[in-house]
């Protein structure tokens, strides 16, 4: 009788534990979803009305990050005609930023858009990485630690902006290549990244993210009709350090308008919170269920054995 009670007690305890863990986990994950970003995080406004497609930012990035020699000189503007698999140029292991040209109807001149990591407040790449290779620094940069990377490339799929790229030329020493906001050489010391310093048109404006947001909104307000009344990156993917101002609709300059307005983390945290619970509690719980359901059979078996013996 005592044995039976203790077993039941064990199962009860297990169930209570499961509920407790679930409740606690929910509280924790809710807290992480309300993270508004570090208070003094830095940011950049990319103003497409100012960019003239000179590619100075690409050249500066190449030198600052010690990237390989480009296929074409940085003053070769025929690269804007390049299409690969029907798509415009994108960042890869040899270039952390590219400028693309967009012909938008209603404009008598083309628009140019610089592309690089957005440095999200709550990065999807970081969320998806199971070895914690990514870090969002208080300065705003999303940096990456090659030493712990196992080359699973989940971050490449997780990123809503298709930014992290894999260094296929060294697959056995896996490395993800992406813009790091010049963290090591500049941002850490409070300096603007190389591309921003190189831009002749000040199409890139650097400062505290909060100030940059104000700058962007002021530009919209001061020249009504010049810009689309939206700062791309204020809320996209839960807010990003790099934000865009555009005179043309964002989807016409290659920016996805389907990017959710909340961090990608919010879509997966429910699932991610369950994983440790499933791994620790379920084995004990279901083992308990199994023992309980087969208990009567075993008692019968024992009684039969006793009867046979007797």
């Amino acid at each position, binding site marked *: 009788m005592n044995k039976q009670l203790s077993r039941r007690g064990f199962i009860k305890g297990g169930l209570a534990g499961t509920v407790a863990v679930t409740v606690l986990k929910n509280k924790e994950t809710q807290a992480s979803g309300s993270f508004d970003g570090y208070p003094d995080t830095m940011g950049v406004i990319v103003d497409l009305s100012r960019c003239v497609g000179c590619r100075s930012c690409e050249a500066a990035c190449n030198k600052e990050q010690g990237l390989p020699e*480009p296929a*074409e*000189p940085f003053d070769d503007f025929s690269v804007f005609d390049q299409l690969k698999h029907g798509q415009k140029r994108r960042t890869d292991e040899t270039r952390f930023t590219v400028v693309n040209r967009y012909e938008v109807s209603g404009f008598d001149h083309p628009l140019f858009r610089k592309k690089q990591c957005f440095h999200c407040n709550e990065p999807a790449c970081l969320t998806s990485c199971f070895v914690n290779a990514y870090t969002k620094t208080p300065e705003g940069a999303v940096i990456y630690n090659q030493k712990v990377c196992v080359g699973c490339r989940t971050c490449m799929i997780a990123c809503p902006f298709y930014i992290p790229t894999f260094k296929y030329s060294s697959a056995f020493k896996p490395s993800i290549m992406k813009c790091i906001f010049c963290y090591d050489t500049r941002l850490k010391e409070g300096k603007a990244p190389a591309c921003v310093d190189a831009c002749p048109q*000040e199409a890139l404006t650097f400062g505290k993210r909060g100030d940059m947001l104000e*700058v962007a909104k002021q530009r919209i307000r001061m020249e009504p009709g010049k810009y689309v009344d939206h700062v791309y990156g204020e809320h996209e993917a839960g807010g990003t350090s790099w934000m865009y101002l555009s005179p043309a609709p964002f989807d016409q300059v290659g920016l996805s308008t389907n990017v959710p307005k909340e961090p990608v983390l919010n879509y997966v945290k429910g699932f991610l919170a369950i994983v440790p619970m499933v791994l620790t509690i379920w084995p004990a719980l279901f083992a308990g269920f199994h023992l309980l359901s087969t208990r009567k059979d075993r008692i019968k078996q024992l009684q039969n054995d006793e009867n046979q013996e007797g």
Partner: protein
Amino acid sequence: MQPGKKMLQAAWALALGVMLLAPAGVLAMDADDAPESVEIDSLSKFYGPVEFDHATHVSLAECADCHHHTTGTGPASTNCARCHDGVEEGDSVSCSDCHAAEPFGQENLEEMENPEIFHFDKPGLKGAYHLNCVGCHQELDGPTGCQDCHTMTEAGEELFNTGKHAPAGGGKKSGH
């Protein structure tokens, strides 16, 4: 008449003129006083200095288009006029006196937080030059190519991997 006396008379006449004109607020700097040409070289590194033909541009644009409110003609922008509606001539008319060569340095970033300063989004010197020059050149179909105004230096060729530093053999293509 002695030359010294003539000079003195001229000075008196000028002083009188200034005194008469000043209250009327027409102390505007005359375009004829401006230099024929200006060498813009303070930022030259990857590109050489710009030989700016000031005389030609005087006939193409208003003083205030570039000098905003410092030459005594009043600002072109209504926003600037909210504070700088006087037409007084500034102590200096140089771009670099207002526009910082390092707009993203700590000093300027901290200045953004100062509520006393309305120039919240003032471009840096390089931005001011290019936004003003290229903006107008686009509107008036002036030259807009980088090397139309300044030639690339050796350091520039290295940065842009062009000229002497052009990629050999087409450079290295991406791995996939």
